[in-house]
């Protein structure tokens, strides 16, 4: 048999691969049972909602309502601004905490201790109600105004969320900076690079690989946490949908609508996070993982190749 096959093939071609094993696979009856039970529970849940007195039509009607869209815009806006404030201040705090200066190090420690140790909801309320203790804001040469005009809902939301976030970002950045091998800064310094340049060109880019994934989580968390700014009367997504719900009588439906919008926004952020992590992974593994798009394209390509092969 084998000699025959070898003769059939051109000289020099390797012998054909041995036949694949054909065996009866193990039957996983437990998996079938589990699948049936979970589908049944899901069906119960869906039927309960179907029988409930939900005016489903109200959701598409108000999905792109002007007030709701304004809420969406504000939610996205306050999320981005709070994160920018949080990341910028967080990096500063992390560097302060790691510095050799005992004063800056302890001040950073104290900041993190305070802002991580109190609930963000309380912090928001405090910012909003500072008007009860201050009548005026007076930054001597630059700015002077009545406190109530100065501390708008927007500013209270931004300070409450951003300053709280900075405490968490500081710890994330510190962990990232400390994760970089000491040999890296030694090599940079041996080349004559200054401390600042070593941090910026060598340490931070490598720390990013550790910093980015939790920061992405923080971003998604922040998007959801912004729903608390209802406490300072900022017109965010939740505030908008609640208002619309009260006026239209579809309170529960509008909450579903808000949930749908939050889901859409967090999904978009997850995709962004994936690509960002991929970018900072360069050099850390031999080849970058394919993006979903590349994977689809590769699959299509191999598919067309296969069909071409069959045709030939």
């Amino acid at each position: 048999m084998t000699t025959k096959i070898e003769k059939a093939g051109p000289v020099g071609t390797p012998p054909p691969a041995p036949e694949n094993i054909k065996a009866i696979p193990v039957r996983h009856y437990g998996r079938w049972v589990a699948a049936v039970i979970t589908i049944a529970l899901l069906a119960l849940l869906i039927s309960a909602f179907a029988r409930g007195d939900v005016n489903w039509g109200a959701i598409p009607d108000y999905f792109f309502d002007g007030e709701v869209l304004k809420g969406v815009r504000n939610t996205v806006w306050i999320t981005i601004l709070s994160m920018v404030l949080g990341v910028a201040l967080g990096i500063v705090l992390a560097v302060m905490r790691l510095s050799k200066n005992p004063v800056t190090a302890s001040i950073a420690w104290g900041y993190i201790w305070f802002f991580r140790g109190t609930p963000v909801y309380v912090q928001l309320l405090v910012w909003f109600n500072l008007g009860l203790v201050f009548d005026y804001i007076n930054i001597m040469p630059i700015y002077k105004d009545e406190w109530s005009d100065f501390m708008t809902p927007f500013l209270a939301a931004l300070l409450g969320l951003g300053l709280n976030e900075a405490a968490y970002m500081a710890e994330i950045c510190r962990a990232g900076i400390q994760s970089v091998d000491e040999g890296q800064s030694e090599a940079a310094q041996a080349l004559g690079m200054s401390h600042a340049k070593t941090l910026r060109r060598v340490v931070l880019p490598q720390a990013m690989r550790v910093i980015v994934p939790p920061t992405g989580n923080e971003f998604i968390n922040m998007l959801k946490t912004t729903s608390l700014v209802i406490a300072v009367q900022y017109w965010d997504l939740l505030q908008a949908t609640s208002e619309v719900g009260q006026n239209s009588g579809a309170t529960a439906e509008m909450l579903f609508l808000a949930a749908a919008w939050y889901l859409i926004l967090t999904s978009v952020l997850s995709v962004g996070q994936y690509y960002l992590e991929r970018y900072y992974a360069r050099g850390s593994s031999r080849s970058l993982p394919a993006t979903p798009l590349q994977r689809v394209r590769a699959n299509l390509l191999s598919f067309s190749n296969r069909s071409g092969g069959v045709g030939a």
Partner: protein
Amino acid sequence: MTAMVKAEGVHKSFGPVQVLKGIDLEVAPREVFCLIGPSGSGKSTFLRCINHLEKINSGRLYVDGDLVGYRQKGDKLYELKDREVAEKRRDIGMVFQRFNLFPHMTALENVIEAPVQVKRETKAVARERALRLLDRVGLGDKAGNYPSQLSGGQQQRVAIARALAMEPKLMLFDEPTSALDPELVGEVLDVMRGLAEEGMTMIVVTHEMGFAREVGDSVVFMDDGVVVESGQPREVLTNPRHERTKSFLSKVL
């Protein structure tokens, strides 16, 4: 002629542990100076003192006639600012046991980083020299590879090219082949041999006795923070006078 490196009674301790207990030695320009000795004898620490990665506790250390890390005015010593220390380090290349290439940069980017960032050279100038240096260490075709895509021997050769890109007058090698698979040691030693032939002043901490014998101009045997024996490689390696040198060599040869 001033010595390239001169040490006078150099002491260094980490907390209560005394690592260097009075090192006196002199390295002439264009000399290949090999430091051998058991681990923990202080050879690597001494090497790191030369470019001020470690601060010495007492004694004096000079590179090319200048005090390392300090400025002397009258009989007072002033610590150099970070910026001044960095400036001095530009002229001293260092190659590490664990390569310490920047993993987020390609081989080429590793080599041009310091000339562009520290010496403010244009990218084009730095790039041209970098490609020439990579060619010289036999890696002209690997310029676009990240360190993780290179073997240990290739990484160490890139690290040598990176140090040479600053056109140093002195090169420090800290056990450059100790982290390599045995069959990769040769390619790194070949590059170092070529460098020695061109007249680079080199201080090499090594366990490669063959290299020390063939390439070295002088060999110093250190043990327990002191220089036990020094001289020409032939004498020290084949005809050691001290018991400690003899017993060390009998173990490694």
